């Protein structure tokens, strides 16, 4: 048995697992289609002389990238079997919630990180550790919130990456229980969503170099603001805000009517 055959056996096991308890006609069709696909891919690999490990890797990649779609498919099939719509019908609010629950969690994570990033040094005193840690946490929160906006307006994949990376600082806070409970589902859901978007070929509008620079600048500015706020005290916000108002006002005046 070659490595490609072993990879195919693993896929067959996965298909049998997620099609378990589905109507036999539906499950058998999916299993038979996959059996054919796996056979064809290995046959093609032999035809073109591809090494078995490369074919195995490709088979495994196709399996893992398709897992979100597999699980959604199972959910839809089960719902259809029980005569229920796959997403709650009726009120649009419920439908939106069913689709976007994890983005609501992500927004909570972002706000929590920004809030805690500011609160930690204020409560525990301004040392290098608390200010640095707070700044990183707040920057991560801004990354999550920015990711939600980018995902919606530009690129689902880029936004998902930003959300997943930004939610990572929630994980080490095991002693508080709530942050990892919020962070882990967000990271998993973002990874799930990203895999689905990638496999659906949703490339979105990639961020231009200038936009990436602005994004990095916003995160950096957020971190600097938090550090400045914590080191110099809350009153420092006043000149910073005044500076921002003057800057925006000057830009508006320079813009032609």
């Amino acid at each position, binding site marked *: 048995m070659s490595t490609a055959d072993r990879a195919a056996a693993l896929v067959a096991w996965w298909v049998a697992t997620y099609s378990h308890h589905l109507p036999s006609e539906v499950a058998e069709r*999916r299993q038979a289609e996959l059996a*054919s696909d796996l056979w064809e891919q290995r046959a093609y690999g032999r035809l073109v002389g591809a090494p078995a490990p490369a074919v195995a890797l490709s088979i495994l990649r196709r399996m893992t990238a398709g897992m979100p779609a597999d699980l959604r*498919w199972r959910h839809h099939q089960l719902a259809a079997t029980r005569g229920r719509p796959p997403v709650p019908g009726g009120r649009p609010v419920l439908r939106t919630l069913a689709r976007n629950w994890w983005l609501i969690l992500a927004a909570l994570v972002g706000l929590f990180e920004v809030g805690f990033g500011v609160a930690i040094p204020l409560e525990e005193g301004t040392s290098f550790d608390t200010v640095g840690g707070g700044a990183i946490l707040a920057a991560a929160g801004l990354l999550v919130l920015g990711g939600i906006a980018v995902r919606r307006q530009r690129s689902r994949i880029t936004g998902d990456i930003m959300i997943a990376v930004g939610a990572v600082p929630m994980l080490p806070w095991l002693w508080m229980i709530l942050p990892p409970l919020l962070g882990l589902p967000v990271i998993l859901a973002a990874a799930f969503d990203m895999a689905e978007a990638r496999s659906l070929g949703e490339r979105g509008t990639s961020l231009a170099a200038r936009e990436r620079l602005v994004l990095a600048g916003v995160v950096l500015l957020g971190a600097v603001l938090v550090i400045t706020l914590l080191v110099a005290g809350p009153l420092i916000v006043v000149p910073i805000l005044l500076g921002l108002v003057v800057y925006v006002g000057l830009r508006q005046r320079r813009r032609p009517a």
Partner: protein
Amino acid sequence: MRRKPGTLLPLEVDILEAGLEIRRAGGARFHGFQLAKAISDHPGPRPLTAHGTLYKALQRLEEAGLLESQWEDPNIAATEGRPRRRLYAVTGAGERTLAAWQARHGRAPGRPGLEPT
């Protein structure tokens, strides 16, 4: 997923385009791996479409009437010593929907260089 009629996801566009191209190249029907291969080869090399995504999209397109499918004759598969293929074809509605999508997005119909497998 609730969508407006006539809207297509990028993968669905790829499937319909590849299916029509295979037909133009002489293959009346196509199977899943053949389609994944055709999509991955054109317009430039990219990874084969994931199993779950591909077959879910095929089912969705079939339910929407843009594709039709049937199992191949088991005798042919037995003779060739391989599992039976599920063979798909783009329907008239599939062609029209794709043409309308291409017109809306300013994309020229057809993709060069696909060959039947």
